């Protein structure tokens, strides 16, 4: 059976209750009759032989690029950069697609006798990964061949000796990237395009850059003008990255881009009901839902988090393309759209969403309130093409426990941002002008970022800016079942039940509002007509 496309369901009296993710758990909610539910397309069929597909892609590159094997010479300096642990979500079952690609590249490099090879994790300002995480992403063979010899590095955006300034864009934006990558004869970038935002010139221009460079597009103005940042043709974020990509190319950095897409097979067998449509739940799905919800009620939150973060997704490689950045990314987006696009007619007054336990920035960690805001208003709100799913002045209702809890190792600056900055103001521009620089240059955060596993001091600001478009578009944000103090601190309204939330929303958008529920994950992009 070929996978079915996404669907927009109109709720009627016989529609079963709808599944809402709720952090480390889920709830069933009865949506009012007439509401719409947007379901993602089913996972596309995977490539039958991923390893040979990868070799094919390397030898038949797109755009203006020679086959990889002809680019490799024994005496050259070769750098392979790769996406970090923030992708895919949840982390995929071994072997990770980056492992497959990098093994194929290294096999070629070994055959060609390339001695000087380094691997660099393109972290940007994300936290450094643990050895276990790197081992999972790269596989043990790659890890063992590189890590012991110091050839596996994690990009350090605060190491001035390992950054190089390549110039300015036409708009005067600094382009500063990893020195080793810039000075290599060939830079191979291995990406995973989980959502449409990833990849393209953003890979190198963001992943391997520094705060100096990033702040030109990671700011409130850019994010308010990225509508959405999931749609590169209407995203100021991407325009800026593309300008930087040009500077990087003009500076003589030769990039061989390898992009991959995965299908949306997101949950393992025991959680399969999470990606099925409720009216198709078989006995096993209903039993699975019942058993896991009951078990989770009795599980302490720390343990539940551990259980969920140990989930490995059965994602499969859906496409791989290599060569020149532009044409490669265009092909990648076709594949992402083929997997994720759902056509939706018109906007509604209220958009509802259930937020899961994971976001790109809390893999093996706690989803703190700032990340809750970012996942709902940054990611899910922006999963559209054309117009937002909710009208201007509308309301977003999201469901998440939103605990006032932080991982102090991963998110030290988040704690201060939440306790000290958001306590003063939630206004984007005020926060940006008054606090950003001190956080970005704080030596303690820099120390933890460089030597521990901490996100950079400025990272919580970016998470907050990620919500900029949504917050200027919406009149109200309501969080169902969240810790009240934490929700209030974010400037949102807490509601204890879904129907309370709907009533509160009616105060803002009027009686009998139209409602759309975005049933994700699995991921989707709403093509709003």
């Amino acid at each position, binding site marked *: 059976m070929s996978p079915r496309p996404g669907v927009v369901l109109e709720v009627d009296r016989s529609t079963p209750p709808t599944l809402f993710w709720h952090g480390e758990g889920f709830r069933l909610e009865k949506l009012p009759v007439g509401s719409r539910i947007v379901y993602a397309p089913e996972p596309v069929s995977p490539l039958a032989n991923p390893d040979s597909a990868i070799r094919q892609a390397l030898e038949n590159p797109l755009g203006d690029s020679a086959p990889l094997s002809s680019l490799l010479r024994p005496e050259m300096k070769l750098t392979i950069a790769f996406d970090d642990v923030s992708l895919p979500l949840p982390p995929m079952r071994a072997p990770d697609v980056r492992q497959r690609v990098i093994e194929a590249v290294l096999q070629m490099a070994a055959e060609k006798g390339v001695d000087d090879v380094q691997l660099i994790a393109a972290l940007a300002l994300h936290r450094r990964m643990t050895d276990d995480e790197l081992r999972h992403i790269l596989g043990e063979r790659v890890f063992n061949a590189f890590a012991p010899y110091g050839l596996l590095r994690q990009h350090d955006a605060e190491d001035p000796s390992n950054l190089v300034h390549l110039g300015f864009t036409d708009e005067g934006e600094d382009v500063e990237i990893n020195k080793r990558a810039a000075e290599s004869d060939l830079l191979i970038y291995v990406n995973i395009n989980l959502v449409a935002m990833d990849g393209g010139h953003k890979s190198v221009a963001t992943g391997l850059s520094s705060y100096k460079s990033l702040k030109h597009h990671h700011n409130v103005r850019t994010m308010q003008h990225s509508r959405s940042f999931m749609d590169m043709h209407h995203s100021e974020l991407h325009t800026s990255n593309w300008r930087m990509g040009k500077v990087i190319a003009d500076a003589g950095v030769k990039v061989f881009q390898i992009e991959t897409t995965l299908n949306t097979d997101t949950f393992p067998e025991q959680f399969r009901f999470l990606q099925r449509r409720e009216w198709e739940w078989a006995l096993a799905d209903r039993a699975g839902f019942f058993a896991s919800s009951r078990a989770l009620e009795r599980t302490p939150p720390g343990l539940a988090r551990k259980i969920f973060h140990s989930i490995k997704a059965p994602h499969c490689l859906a496409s791989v393309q290599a060569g020149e950045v532009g044409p490669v990314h265009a092909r990648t987006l076709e594949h992402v759209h083929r997997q994720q696009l759902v056509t939706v007619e018109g906007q509604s007054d209220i958009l509802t969403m259930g937020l899961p336990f994971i976001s790109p920035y809390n893999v093996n960690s706690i989803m703190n309130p700032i990340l809750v805001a970012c996942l709902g208003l940054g990611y899910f709100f922006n999963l559209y093409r054309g117009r937002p799913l909710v009208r201007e002045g509308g309301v977003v209702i999201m469901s998440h426990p939103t605990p006032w809890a932080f991982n102090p190792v991963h998110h030290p600056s988040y704690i201060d941002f939440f306790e*000290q900055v958001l306590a003063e103001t939630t206004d984007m521009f005020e926060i940006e002008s008054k606090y950003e620089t001190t956080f970005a240059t704080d030596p303690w955060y820099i120390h933890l970022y460089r030597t521990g596993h901490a996100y950079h001091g400025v990272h919580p600001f970016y998470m907050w800016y990620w919500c900029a478009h949504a917050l200027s578009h919406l009149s109200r944000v309501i969080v169902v079942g969240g810790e009240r103090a934490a929700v209030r601190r974010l400037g949102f309204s807490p509601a204890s039940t879904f129907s309370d939330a709907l009533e509160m929303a009616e105060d803002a958008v009027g009686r009998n509002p139209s409602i759309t529920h975005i049933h994700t994950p699995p991921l989707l992009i709403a093509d709003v007509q």
Partner: protein
Amino acid sequence: MKALVFERQLARFAASRLVSDLSGSGRGVGVGPLELLEVEPPELPGPGWVRLEPRLAGICGSDIATLDGRSSRYFEDVVSLPFVPGHEIVADVRGGPKDGERVVLEPVLSCTVRGFEPPCDPCRRGERGRCERISFGALAPGLQTGYCADTGGGWSGGLVAHESQLLAIPEEMSDEAAVMIEPTACAIHAALRSERAQAGRVLVLGAGTLGLLTIAALRSAVSPSLLVAVAKHPEQRRWAKRLGADYVVAPAEAVRATRRLTGSLALPVDGSVIARVTGGLDVVYDCVGSHSSLASALSVVRPGGEIVLVGMPGPVKVDLAPLWQREIALRGAYAYGTEQTATGPRRTFELAAELVATAGLEELVSSTYPLERYEEAIAHAAAAGRRGAVKVVFDLRRRGDRRLGGEKENR
């Protein structure tokens, strides 16, 4: 005349300590050594003394510590029993040339008051808080009115005071404003105790009356470059902000906030839980005086910095290793006298009267109680922060009540 009298009764002393340990500060008053009695007004000790009839008398943190049986035994030799507490007093003068004048009392019983001529060195310099003769001379021992058996105190219908202790208050100043002058003078004196605070980064620990007044005093008299306040309760946070704190943080956030605001590094280095900063603030004003507040102060003050003890401390157990290794200065700040200002030396009480007026500090008076409800009043004052209050005072203005109470007592 009615008066709340504090007597030496060991059993009651122990009982109040026990009750306040078990059920909280201020709760042991009923069983404690404080009693409401009908007493004779104190004798005038000599020329230069006048009678006062209190209008308002504040309840101070040090009073509560004394009533809880928690104050240091150090004070045993510098007080004389039985005494009537109350040293934050606004009163009417009775008799003499100044009869009927409304005054505030500067309670320190220094050389001039005790009839020493010439006065001791500090008193000569106007530093009356540092008087070397507080247990000697014409009066029974007692460092202040309110701790001396001969003078009486504010929590009563009448007391005696030396003319040098009085400060006339202008007609337009309310009683509530006037009763804030004494604690404000303490705060101003404390704020001026550290030279490092000038244009420095300071933190005020505690946001009770003294903490809030210290914030106001720092803002008006010292102008630090950064003023952080640590406050526990919502009402305190609001006040701290209003009186001029740049940032107000919860006690649990104090170290983190200090670290961020000073851009310091911190220990331990794994980032999991920050115990102390390696840089820190120039001056910390400890307006609590407990061992935990002193430990917090030590964890946020910079090497070479200074801790000013504003709140009355008792015996505390604290690790002094950081004090030694980081060369931190620990300073006391007691009472008031004369301050050196840009325009020359000025009496602290005058500076305080100005600050009370300009900063609207009379609003800090949250509740008033008649003497008869003293148990309630003291319990309220002891739990002020939690109950959304700042300063609790006795209101002695309604004479009718006083006479009525006296008759009851006679029956």
